[in-house]
């Protein structure tokens, strides 16, 4: 805050002295490492960095970062973060949340933080299960999932968090996964640099209650044919030889063999389209992590962020009316003087 030089830090500077309590083998470890490694690279300042979380396994995250942090209550992190980001635009506010926290109990706050475009960076750890409460289905669990609370299979239709965020017209929406630190760091960096609300869905393995949920797309062998890497300005194609691709028509997006349609027919990925419809169509290519799934940045558009606008109104009012004068305020209605008799 005091000087403009980029501080030199190491991962250690960002690591708190608290013992990490996640289960051994949890995907959260690799996300934590990615963030701690990214911070020095961003040139961020510890004192200006705040992590706010809700409740759940992922929400323990702030305790492990040597920054400012609040472990709040279930689902409400975006609400606290909104108040902080609006009143302290000098800070960088991160929200750490999970699929239950952000999409079930806190669904409302997530939607509104995104639509208002509050300047916060949201990392949504999606493991498709409730971990901290020991294994109930979550709003992203696949229909039919057998859990402790659904012995006959869940009946709920799951959300797709990326579709949801795009539906709320979020200005930045991306997806990454816990098996690829480099991709995580690159994606988190983009989210950090975005002015406004940025949502990153992180596919994260819960090795205790939902082990292997993403195996079909995330094992080293499966990735080439199952991950569709979105790159701005490039044709959307995937497969070991780039033999498959995506075309977008009025009916939506679909996966094709490049040989069948020709390279020129492939959609060129454009993060900056003002209309989120094409990004939404891309998010519908898979309805769960079992078929080819896009990762990377779906959408990154510029839109004034909420806090800047709130503060602009405050500045504007001060310029127009002058700084507040309390005595004048109290006498702003009709007044009269009573004299002693």
């Amino acid at each position, binding site marked *: 805050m005091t000087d403009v030089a980029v501080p030199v830090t190491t991962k250690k500077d960002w690591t708190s002295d608290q013992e990490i309590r996640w289960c051994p083998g949890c995907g959260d470890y690799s996300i934590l490492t990615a963030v701690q490694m990214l911070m020095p690279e961003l040139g961020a300042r510890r004192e200006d960095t705040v992590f706010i979380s809700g409740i759940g396994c992922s929400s323990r995250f702030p305790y492990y970062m040597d920054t400012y942090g609040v472990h709040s209550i279930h689902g409400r992190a975006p609400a606290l973060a909104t*108040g902080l980001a609006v009143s302290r635009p000098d*800070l960088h506010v991160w929200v750490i949340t999970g699929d239950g926290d952000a999409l079930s109990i806190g669904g*409302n706050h997530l939607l509104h933080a995104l639509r208002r475009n509050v300047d916060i960076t949201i990392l949504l750890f999606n493991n498709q299960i409730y971990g901290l409460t020991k294994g109930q289905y979550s709003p992203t669990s696949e229909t039919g999932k057998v859990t402790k609370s659904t012995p006959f299979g869940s009946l709920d239709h799951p959300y797709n968090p990326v579709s949801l965020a795009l539906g709320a017209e979020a200005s930045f929406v991306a997806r990454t996964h816990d098996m690829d630190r480099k991709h995580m760091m690159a994606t988190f960096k983009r989210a950090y640099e975005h002015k406004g609300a940025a949502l990153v869905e992180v596919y994260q393995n819960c090795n205790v209650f939902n082990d292997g949920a993403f195996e079909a797309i995330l094992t080293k062998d499966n990735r080439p044919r199952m991950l569709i890497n979105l790159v701005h300005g490039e044709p959307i194609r995937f497969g070991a030889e780039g033999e498959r691709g995506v075309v977008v028509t009025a009916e939506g997006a679909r996966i094709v063999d490049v040989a069948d349609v020709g390279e020129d027919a492939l959609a060129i990925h454009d993060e900056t389209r003002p209309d989120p419809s094409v990004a939404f169509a891309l998010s519908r290519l898979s309805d769960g992590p079992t078929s080819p799934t896009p990762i990377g940045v779906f959408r990154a558009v510029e839109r004034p962020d909420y806090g800047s606008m709130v503060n602009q109104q*405050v500045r504007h009012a001060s310029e127009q009316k*002058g700084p507040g004068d309390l005595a004048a305020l109290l006498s702003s209605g009709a007044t009269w003087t009573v004299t002693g008799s």
Partner: protein
Amino acid sequence: MADTAIPPRTAPPNTIELDRVVIRFAGDSGDGMQLTGDRFTESSAIFGNDLSTLPDFPAEIRAPAGTLAGVSAFQVHISDHDILTPGDNPSVLVAMNPAALRANLKDVAPAGTIIVNSDSFDERALAKAGYVSNPLEDGTLKDFTVYEIPMTSITLEAVKPSGTKPRDAERSKNLFALGVISWMYTRPVETTIAWIEAKFAKNEMVKTANVLAFKAGYNFGETAELFESNYIVKPAALEPGEYTNVSGNTALAWGLVAAGQLAKLPLFLGSYPITPASDILHELSKHKNFGVRTVQAEDEIAGIGAALGASYGGSLGVTTTSGPGIDLKTETIGLAVNLELPLVIIDIQRGGPSTGLPTKTEQADLLQAMFGRHGEAPVPIVAPDTPGDCFFAAIEAARIAVKYRTPVFLLSDGYLANGAEPWKIPDVDSLPDISVDFATAPNHTRADGGEEFWPYLRDAETLARPWAVPGTPGLEHRIGGLEKADGAGTVSYDPANHEKMVHLRVDKIAGIARDIPLVEVDDPDGDAELLVLGWGSTYGAIAAGLRRVRLQGHHVAHAHLRHLNPFPANLGEVLRRYRTVLVPEMNLGQLSTLVRARFLVDAKGLNKMSGQPFRAGEIERAVLDLLSADAPAAASDSKGN
């Protein structure tokens, strides 16, 4: 327009001086009765009367026209002396239609005056109001002085020069009624005409019509040989100073602005619209030049969440709501208790449970504020006692919040929120400095000699923890809803630590008793055996009721609580001084439950749950009943006084 000009005021042949009058304007909720009442109030305030108001309107914006449910009323009490309540029974009722008459007639004082819009008493309107025969003709009103004025037709005729269509023209009839009453009570007219012109400046035709209707009403009073006399209520001898007319919600909003200035912190309001609290959001959103930030959140939970987030960042976080909103905010209040951050929670209480009576008043959230959280989660509570006092109560709530790093409840209610009174504008320089320091440096030395910051190392006197805001280098720390280790503030599941932390949080709030005034007892004779203990908006009715009791020769004492948690340090001693303690409350006995439990005092309740404030007469009766039960002989002596 020459024929409608106001003639120069000559002393009316027959002006009768009154010391006070209570007027109730009643009509359809679309008739503009609140506006009419507000304007009459304002002109009386400017004239220098003391006054008190009671708006009473349905929750529906436009309830079915002509029905009892749709009646909207505004009562104002004006006087030449200091008054405390909007008056028990109106001496004048202005009824714009049969439903308004029917809904309000039972309240009119014996031999009172009733002014009706006779044009509206047609068969259909009578039937809608549930009248089988016309009360203007069947003797229903024989005990009252009734003035039948064809307000609609005179208004239509009067506003013709404005070119307004008849349908729109009729809407000016409330201004006609205001004109009549302004003449009757010798109100200044120029200020009202100027007000109409400013209020309707954007629509020339409506502005002209309203001015014409108002003048027509005034001139009707002057020239129609209907009224034998008019009245004057002279200015009240109030304490010298500059006055303005404020409602409780406006005073509260100004108090919050002041609190931000006095605390030297930016004010942040996170709120969600709810009756009867929304006006505070409206008012605060106008004052951004004081650095006030307002966020109309997606729900009650986000409103308080944003406020708490802002407090964490070093703002004075405030959330405003009513009972149903408190239900939703409860979990975040518990978090604020645990985070030990300042937060002001404004509850404008209304009739409950659930949606209850959104536009009516009640005091039934006291125990919720006191106990409505899981775990041991004490929260200080302050309550204003008059509309103007909402200003000072807001500052006091903020003072406690920032000094003790705690959420604080401010319990106002619908009656204070919408009621208005002349308010002596305080000298800004006399307001307290409530600013506190943020932490700027480490406060703990490790065994290895290193310096670090412990977020839960407390001030020895206040037990408040340091407030270290993000952006401060070297004080990075994590807080949360999990139990914290005493001092270090890291997560702790240690049983002994939890027990200690529970006590520390409780002791911190209890210790505020050392930092608030003792409760004062109004016991003019010093030998009363009966104490009336009140809190919040019942102040006016209790004080007025006790005035009447004292005029009858009885000795009674009155104590009124501003702080409900913690109680003033001397409250137990005060209560034990009196043989009988009566606690009037607009609930089923919440304060009396607390004082009985805390002080083992056999407090008696006087409880009212009608959505209406107490009347002075109700307090008077209850006190007289108790006095006669306690001392039958003395009571019978005083009956004839």
